[in-house]
């Protein structure tokens, strides 16, 4: 593995008692790419992302994010990473503006920087009209926009998104995919896009890792993988991989 990798994972394993959630997974994500992380629910995608941020300890294996070792330099990793979990709630008594200021303070960013970034993100996600309304009554789509805004507030170099398009309407989804392309292209942000919506992964990612029942079953260039498995679409590829594993 070379230093151009933003994320390097080797033999990553996570066990919860008798259950193996992630089993010896090895892959690497290049700097500035939008990397697809595919697999059905329970395949181990979320656990892998959580391990990368030190939210759950590794059972074995190693992982590095931007050259920093997971488990030993967790706080430094979090300082340079943005994260949107698949399942979360926003503080119901806060407004989006208050919440973004709170998150900015957690990163220790200067007040004026937080204020400027907050306003820019509120505009970017079309939340200005709702910026001072309590988050309690927000729709799923609006909640997801605030979730994405908080993930971008620290201008992360690595962005870990777990099912980010769920809850978004078609327009919101299109805008998000466009934003992620722009972040990778213009700002060199490394994006790990975890999803089971294969069309989103196909639209966004050149390279993918596919998890199935806690194990990595494919990793590499999408076109190469498709050719290798005789698949025309991402759906075909995924089904071919899963069926091969089941056989």
């Amino acid at each position, binding site marked *: 593995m070379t230093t151009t990798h933003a994320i390097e994972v080797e033999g990553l394993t996570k066990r919860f008692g008798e259950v193996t959630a992630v089993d010896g997974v090895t892959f690497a994500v290049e700097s500035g790419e939008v990397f697809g992380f595919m697999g059905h629910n329970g395949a181990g995608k979320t656990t892998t992302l959580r391990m990368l*941020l030190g*939210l*759950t300890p590794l059972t074995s294996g190693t992982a590095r994010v931007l050259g920093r070792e997971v488990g030993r330099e967790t*706080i*430094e990793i*979090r*300082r340079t*990473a943005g*994260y*949107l*979990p698949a*399942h*979360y*709630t*926003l*503080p119901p*008594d*806060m407004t989006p503006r*208050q919440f973004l*200021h*709170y*998150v900015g*303070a*957690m*990163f*220790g960013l200067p*007040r004026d920087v937080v204020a400027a970034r907050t306003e820019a993100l509120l505009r970017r996600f079309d939340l200005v009209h709702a910026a001072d309304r309590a988050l309690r009554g927000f729709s799923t789509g609006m909640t997801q926009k605030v*979730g994405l805004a*908080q993930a971008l507030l620290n201008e992360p170099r690595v962005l870990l998104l777990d099912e980010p398009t769920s809850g978004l309407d078609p327009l919101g989804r299109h805008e998000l995919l466009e934003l992620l392309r722009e972040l990778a292209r213009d700002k060199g942000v490394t994006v790990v896009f975890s999803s089971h919506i294969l069309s989103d992964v196909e639209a966004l990612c050149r390279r993918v890792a596919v998890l199935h029942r806690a194990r990595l079953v494919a990793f590499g260039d999408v076109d190469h993988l498709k050719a290798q498995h005789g698949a025309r679409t991402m759906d075909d590829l995924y089904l071919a991989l899963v069926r091969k594993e089941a056989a």
Partner: protein
Amino acid sequence: MIRLQWLDYLATLRERKTWLCGAMLLYAVLSIPVMLARPPAHVQEAIAAWFGHGGPFVLFMYVWIDLAMNKMVAFLPVVLASGIVLRERDVGVLSILAAKPLSMPRYFALRAVSACAVMATLHVGAQLLGLVYFTARVPGFRPLAFLAAMTPHLFAAIFATCFSAAIAGWVKHRGASALIGLAVLGLLLGLSLIGFYQPAWRNLTLVNPMSLGALALGNLDHLGPKDLAPPMLALSLLSLAAIAIGAAGVRRMEA
């Protein structure tokens, strides 16, 4: 960190449970003078026996500390702090916040300090409101002695909040944390004045932190810094210890 602490304090202040606590304290302030308009004879006799005389101000302070504020200190810290970090974990807020560059013990300490600050705000607010209201309603009310006597009680309230948070840090279940907090604080507060009833046990009761908050009750006529400072210092140290113990409890907690 100071900015984050301030924002967290404001966020805690805006929570519904804070408004509930504020409403309870307001009720206590407004109701006590009404209840004291005709105190039962046996209460007056008991106070005369315990405190040497049954003057109206001593009677009022006993009722205010033991029947009102001590009950509040058994209940409000549990409402404010028994679910800190646990509630965020259970509702899903922690899955976002735990990914920020703040370790779980530091996040716990942040939330615990905010809960203490809110408890202090409510406590001070109640005393200041009471100061105005009681001056007009309570015969023989002495504002300075009232404020002096309630200052160590404020520190006891802060300790109770830290203690409740520490239980949350180790129990890790909101319901159990609240029940244990209520039971232990209720017991400590129930025993806090026993040194006045049984002078022979007075020194022994000083190991009860909640007794330190009510010590001034036995010396309302001559309260000075040397009476007030030691219990306040002891309660401050105990509060810091409780936060540190609670923070150690959440070290391995996952969002």
